[in-house]
């Protein structure tokens, strides 16, 4: 058994104690390590247009640009070349977890530096990316799933999955949670108080003006029906408040254990629908990857007894389960509170905590629940 040790509970902690826990109690940084793996490609995709520009000999100051602050001197274009290429190389190191404590801050500095060369480099998705990179840099996200971890194990003789192998300071994780939730809440609230938005005018007008894109992407027999539907004013009168509610729901419900899984599933649906209907650069990929930060920062605190746990181990990226193979055994899952689940409940508990299958399992569960 390799469950993370937890101090016995001695009564409800006060708010001050909870805050101290955030800063002083080590916990699993695995979710940030998973996020780190994805952020490398995300940064490369983000930097790609700048890289190709510099290859063509063009830098930001060869055309219109706007300094962020009046006192800021004009930075030579060569600095941008250094920033984007260093950032790209550092992003590869970031994903590999090679010298993570060094390359993670470098990646952040390069992406931030490029953004702050000109106001017109700003995008909301790039600001969000900076949040993610900062958290990965501030936490010891290279403790697991990294070349750093492999090198440390070779030095100390430790093995993957040893107790405490992924423990680190997690205040950056909590800070990132607050910032990520604020993004959903800020966006949702601004739309809620804007009657043009919540009343459907904004989305309807966009749909009307971009209906040609629907005709380009939807096969002819049903294109007319789709266009008629998406350009109907009443449709947006209904869907716009729902869109606002979705953002607010994600920003609030994701904080609570009872609603978190639902919020994460809704967030996946939300980001996939945005990706299909709008151009948001790396936002969808980054935002879906960032949902990892809402996994409870504890590892192997549930026990699975299963006949063959090979696939569970492969898919259990968050290391939620202490997987025990027992040939011929029926599936049982022992939850954090000691409750032993079997049958359908055990299957739900197991599959709903494996990130790749979660979106589909959640739908199946919802359909089954509705039928019953």
């Amino acid at each position: 058994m390799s469950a993370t040790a937890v101090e016995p509970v001695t009564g409800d902690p006060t708010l001050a104690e909870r805050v101290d826990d955030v800063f002083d109690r080590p916990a699993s940084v695995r979710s940030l390590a998973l996020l780190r793996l994805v952020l490398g490609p995300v940064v490369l995709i983000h930097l790609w247009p700048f890289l190709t520009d510099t290859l063509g000999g063009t830098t930001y100051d060869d055309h219109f640009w706007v300094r962020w602050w009046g006192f800021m001197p004009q930075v030579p274009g060569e600095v941008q070349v250094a920033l984007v290429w260093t950032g790209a190389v550092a992003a590869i190191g970031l994903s590999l977890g090679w010298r993570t404590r060094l390359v993670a801050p470098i990646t952040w500095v390069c992406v931030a530096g490029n953004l702050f060369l000109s106001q017109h480099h700003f995008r909301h998705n790039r600001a969000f990316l900076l949040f993610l990179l900062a958290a990965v840099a501030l936490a010891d996200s290279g403790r697991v799933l990294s070349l750093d971890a492999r090198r440390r194990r070779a030095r100390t003789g430790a093995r993957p999955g040893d107790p405490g192998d992924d423990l680190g300071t997690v205040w950056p994780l909590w800070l990132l949670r607050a910032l990520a939730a604020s993004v959903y809440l800020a966006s949702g609230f601004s739309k809620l108080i804007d009657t043009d938005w919540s009343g459907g005018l904004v989305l309807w007008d966009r749909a009307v003006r971009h209906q040609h894109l629907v005709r380009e992407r939807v096969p002819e027999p049903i294109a007319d029906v789709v266009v008629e539907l998406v350009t109907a004013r009443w449709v947006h009168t209904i869907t716009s408040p729902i869109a606002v509610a979705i953002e607010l729901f994600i920003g609030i419900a994701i904080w609570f254990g009872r609603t978190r899984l639902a919020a994460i599933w809704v967030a996946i649906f939300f980001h996939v629908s945005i990706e299909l209907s709008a151009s948001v650069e790396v936002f969808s990929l980054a935002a879906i990857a960032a949902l990892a930060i809402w996994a409870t920062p504890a590892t192997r605190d549930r026990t699975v007894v299963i006949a063959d746990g090979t696939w569970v181990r492969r898919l259990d990226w968050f290391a939620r389960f202490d997987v025990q193979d027992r040939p011929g055994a029926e599936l049982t899952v022992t939850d954090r509170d000691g409750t032993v689940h079997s049958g359908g409940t055990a299957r739900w508990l197991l599959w709903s905590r494996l990130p790749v299958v979660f979106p589909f399992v959640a739908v199946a569960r919802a359909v089954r629940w509705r039928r019953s």
Partner: protein
Amino acid sequence: MPAPGAVDAPHSSGVEQGAVGSDRIVRPRWRARLVRGFVAVVLVGQAVLIVRGYADPHKFFAFQPFNESSTWRADIVRVTADGQRIPIEEPWPGGYEWDELVRWRVLERPGTMRHAYSGLGTSLDFLDDALDWVAANTPEDDETLYLEATTEAYRNTRGPEVLVLRSDLRDEAR
């Protein structure tokens, strides 16, 4: 210095774990305060930027994407020292072209009605900045005194709102 009996720190460099039997991270008092202060500053800063976004045309770090469905276009002319008003689509001393100078699709082909990127405020503010930038970065143009854009905008289908923007005066034509 590690606390007496400290175990091998599995944390970030410089972070020490508490004594054996404790699962607390022990930091020097100044460092603990620094970390808490940093987090507080970031959270307050984020809150300020979100609130500030309601007064900022660009809504930097305020996270208000897809905030409008506004549209705009602009007629931009070069006003010469002798008072001529020459559309930027016509030949320009030095062979300059607006689209090449701005090289950003948000501001290219300004005469065409288009979606207001990130809202009308953002687009028109950038257009104003672009007039100044172009005026300052066309040294071979010795006849243009300033650039002037007359914009026609529809805020969420309502309008038109007409606005006249002018660049800084250029020394080259004075």
